[in-house]
């Protein structure tokens, strides 16, 4: 191994010009990646991770400029290279994979041609390039190479498209691979496959990797060393083990604490947050960049930026208090929610919502597509029901059916508090509408950007409670303050608020009609972990105080586990497992749940053997016969009931008190195989 690092950033400074004003985005970042090493960069949004990644490719937006420092690729300074020299490096030596793979492929060019282009650039003939393209695609374990090569990007699934992008990036055996959030937006099972693939290929090729992710679990699994970025500064750096087991910067400690880790539950543990909000782009600092949010802050922190302190061999933390960081006091947001006129609600435990035989079929090009198939669930008062499953499992459709946003099929029954509800919203009365509300994933799209925050909430109060406009404005202010949206922000418009605040406004609106049940559809997926923690805490507080029930949809199993009392696991529009949170997570699991759980990289570093699901989710228009999971089931082979699995669809049976499963394999046999 040569001693020259593959990539070295030396005191790199990058500025963005925003309306003519230069703002610092990277403030002197230095790190180096040895050949064959995987280096992870973590941090919340806006801290400069992606800028660092693109700077390493010397590809910055039009308004971005390297204002100081050096980027050395194998000892050569890329900041001094001509455009042609950089192009040549990109052709063969460095390449990049990023988020949103479908958009990264040209929609009007066939996959084969796009991959072949990489080889053509190196001067190969068209036929050679096509042959090599096929080999490159085969290397990323694409089964049906010829057919994929003839397809266009829109005909690929997200996971498949990401494989293509990876194939393209690795085609020329680059010496450095930059991966910017490569699995964000993919399903857990697909993410696990892509990560396994990257790990295998890296072992094979010895490529150095700069890996960027907001997901600490993924970083822990993929990287040898980790750097933590905050406000454009590298605040801590060390081996993965050191960073996760001995974090020494208050920011790193805070980040790790806010994540709902395995085992934490809302009934026993409150999530930590990081106080305050990240500094605005290009904010000026005299001292440490983290002063405004640090619980250990002292005068000297404000006066000067601490020099990197050596915590251990290969472990640096830029903090005066690196020795105290781990024992720093917990940052828990104060409990101060007061929301409703305390309605007398039945005590916890009684049933609130009953869903019976809920089904929905769409007709698409003459074929019937059963998106939701005979789902029966119940939610108690003050209880949270978590819905999990891969995309396309029907989670959001179920939520829409319950709310009446989409009409359910005949035979479906939604009973709220003893009253059977009409199938569609327009036939429900105001009280029914107010009793069930929804919080969406993306508050940007869910809030009218032309209306003030007060107006958004007060409209809902007027509609759902029949208040006049003065009363409803007062009530809106009360609600917003209860959700800790400061009074000074009540006349602001949603675009002026941060993501977390927008989500608080959306939650306030959902609570306008004193709902009995609120559906939360991926409410924290677009938020940073510290903000996610405050939103989850808020939801838990609201529930404890008002006895509100939640249906909580999320692809993040850690979050679902933390907040849910009961969990329903969905596959292809069917409930495959339903039970108490600890039954579902503790096992014995349904084979699908088992595979899903094993694909999540957890941050505690425990390595769980991944149980792979073969193939991809089948189309709901043509589900497999028998048990819908059977073509992919990890436990069917050797179970002794294969004949049954492929011919008869199993019923949802109660396997132990309160724990339901849709599986032919006997419960005890599942227990035995899963423990071995």
């Amino acid at each position: 191994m040569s001693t020259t690092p593959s990539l070295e950033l030396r005191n790199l400074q990058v500025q963005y010009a925003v309306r003519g004003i230069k703002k610092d985005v990277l403030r002197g970042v230095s790190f180096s990646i040895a050949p064959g090493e995987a280096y992870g960069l973590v941090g919340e949004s806006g801290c400069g991770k992606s800028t660092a990644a693109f700077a390493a490719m010397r590809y910055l937006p039009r308004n971005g400029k390297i204002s100081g420092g050096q980027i050395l690729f194998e000892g050569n300074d890329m900041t001094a290279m001509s455009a042609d020299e950089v192009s040549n490096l990109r052709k063969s030596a460095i390449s990049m994979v990023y988020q949103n793979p479908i958009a990264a492929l040209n929609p009007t060019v066939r996959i084969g041609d796009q991959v072949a282009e990489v080889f053509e650039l190196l001067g190969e003939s068209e036929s050679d390039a096509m042959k090599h393209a096929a080999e490159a695609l085969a290397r990323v374990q694409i089964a049906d190479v010829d057919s994929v090569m003839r397809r266009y990007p829109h005909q690929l699934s997200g996971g498949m498209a990401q494989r293509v992008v990876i194939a393209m990036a690795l085609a020329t055996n680059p010496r450095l691979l930059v991966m910017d959030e490569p699995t964000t937006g993919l399903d857990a099972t697909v993410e696990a496959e892509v990560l396994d693939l990257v790990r295998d290929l890296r072992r094979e090729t010895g490529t150095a990797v700069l890996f960027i992710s907001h997901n600490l679990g993924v970083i822990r699994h993929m990287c040898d060393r980790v750097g933590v970025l905050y406000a454009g500064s590298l605040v801590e750096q060390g081996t993965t083990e050191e960073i996760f087991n001995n974090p020494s910067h208050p920011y790193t400690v805070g980040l790790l604490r806010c994540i709902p880790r395995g085992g934490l539950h809302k009934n026993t543990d409150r999530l930590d947050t990081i106080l305050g909000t990240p500094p605005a782009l290009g904010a000026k600092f005299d001292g440490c960049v983290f002063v405004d949010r640090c619980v250990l802050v002292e005068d000297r922190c404000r006066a000067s930026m601490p020099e990197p302190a050596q915590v251990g061999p290969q472990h640096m933390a830029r903090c005066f208090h690196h020795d105290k960081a781990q024992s720093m006091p917990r940052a828990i947001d104060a409990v101060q929610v007061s929301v409703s006129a305390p309605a007398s609600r039945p005590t916890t435990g009684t049933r609130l919502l009953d869903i019976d035989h809920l089904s929905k079929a769409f007709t698409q090009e003459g074929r019937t597509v059963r998106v939701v198939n005979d789902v029966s669930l119940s939610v108690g008062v003050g209880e949270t029901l978590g819905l999990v499953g891969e995309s396309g499992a029907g989670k959001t459709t179920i939520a829409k059916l319950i709310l009446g946003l989409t009409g359910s099929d005949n035979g479906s029954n939604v009973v709220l508090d003893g009253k059977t509800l009409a199938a569609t919203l327009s036939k429900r009365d105001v009280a029914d509408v107010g009793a069930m509300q929804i919080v969406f994933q993306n508050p940007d799209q869910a809030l009218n950007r032309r209306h003030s925050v007060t107006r958004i909430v007060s409209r809902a109060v007027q509609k759902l409670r029949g208040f006049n406009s003065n009363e409803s404005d007062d009530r809106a202010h009360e609600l917003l303050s209860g959700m800790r949206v400061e009074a000074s922000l009540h006349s602001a418009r949603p675009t002026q608020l941060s993501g977390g605040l927008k989500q608080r406004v959306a939650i306030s609106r959902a609570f306008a009609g004193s709902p009995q049940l609120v559906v939360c559809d991926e409410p924290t997926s677009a938020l940073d972990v510290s903000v996610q923690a405050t939103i989850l805490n808020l939801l838990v507080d609201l529930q404890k105080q008002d006895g509100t029930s939640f249906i909580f949809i999320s692809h993040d199993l850690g979050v679902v586990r933390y907040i849910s009392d009961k969990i329903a696991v969905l596959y292809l529009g069917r409930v495959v497992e339903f039970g108490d949170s600890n039954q579902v997570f503790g096992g014995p699991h349904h084979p699908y749940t088992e595979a899903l759980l094993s694909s999540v990289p957890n941050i505690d570093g425990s390595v769980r053997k991944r149980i792979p699901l073969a193939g991809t989710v089948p189309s709901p228009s043509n589900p497999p016969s028998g048990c819908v999971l059977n073509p992919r089931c990890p436990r069917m082979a050797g179970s002794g009931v294969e004949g049954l699995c492929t011919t008869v669809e199993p019923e949802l049976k109660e396997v132990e008190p309160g724990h339901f499963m849709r599986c032919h394999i006997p419960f005890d046999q599942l227990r035995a195989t899963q423990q071995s």
Partner: protein
Amino acid sequence: MFIVATIVFFLTRILPGNVARRYLGRSATEEDLVNFNTKFGLDKPLLTQFYSWLRDLLTGDLGTSMAFNKPASELLLPAIGYSSRLALMSFLIIVPLSIAGGIIAAMYRGKLVDRILTVGGLSAAVIPEFVWAVTLILVFGVTLEVLPVTAFPTRGNPSFFSQIEHLILPSTALLLVLFGYIARITRASVIEALESDYMRTAVLKGLSRRRAVVTHVLRNALLPSIAVIASQVPYLVGGLVAVEIVFNYPGFGTILRDAVGGRDYAVLQSGVMLTSLVIVLFQLAADILFAVLNPRIRSRISE
């Protein structure tokens, strides 16, 4: 097309004036008027007239011109020939120039070239084509005397080049009007494609900027332009009428104007019907081209 036919028919009938009196003059007797009306079917109820006109139209009979007393098709067909020559010429000038202008403006976004092209293009577009036509005639035809002032070579048997030469000014007048719109849309879609993730992929693959633009941007960016060009065809036709009149070109527009002036129902109605047919065909062609270039639509059709 049926709706268009209905509108055309009744609109032309709203035009004021007694047709027979107009053609036969003040000295005509009542009897002459009745004969004229009978000959052209004007004495029958309006709906009957409409029905027979529609029936004739479907069999390809465009009716009889009242002014010249010969089949309307004999008047219209040569005029259409001339007009399509002018339209084709204009089209060949307008489309490449506007698209090139849009691409250049997008590539040099924010620079001086971009400002000149976008501001200049839109300023030119707000001035009506007949004003441009007259201005062009004055500048190039009268003052500079470099190009002919009429669009049609009058003497002798014109050569191909002399015909082209005569068409330059009228085409330019149309170009000035349509350039702004097409260039603007092209510019917007090229910018969108330049900022797309797949353009980033292309550059990070090591393609030079020029090559990335040619192979990855143009096809995606031209899709919206096709739709815009197709939507501008009616304006092109409208512009033709005005320009032909100014340049005294014996095309479609001139015939139509005379037909309106003379209440020549058959010519007018059939002329407008043919125009709308052309426009519809263009839209269809544009949609087909759009589908051919856009695999997302193509696969939807084949599924």
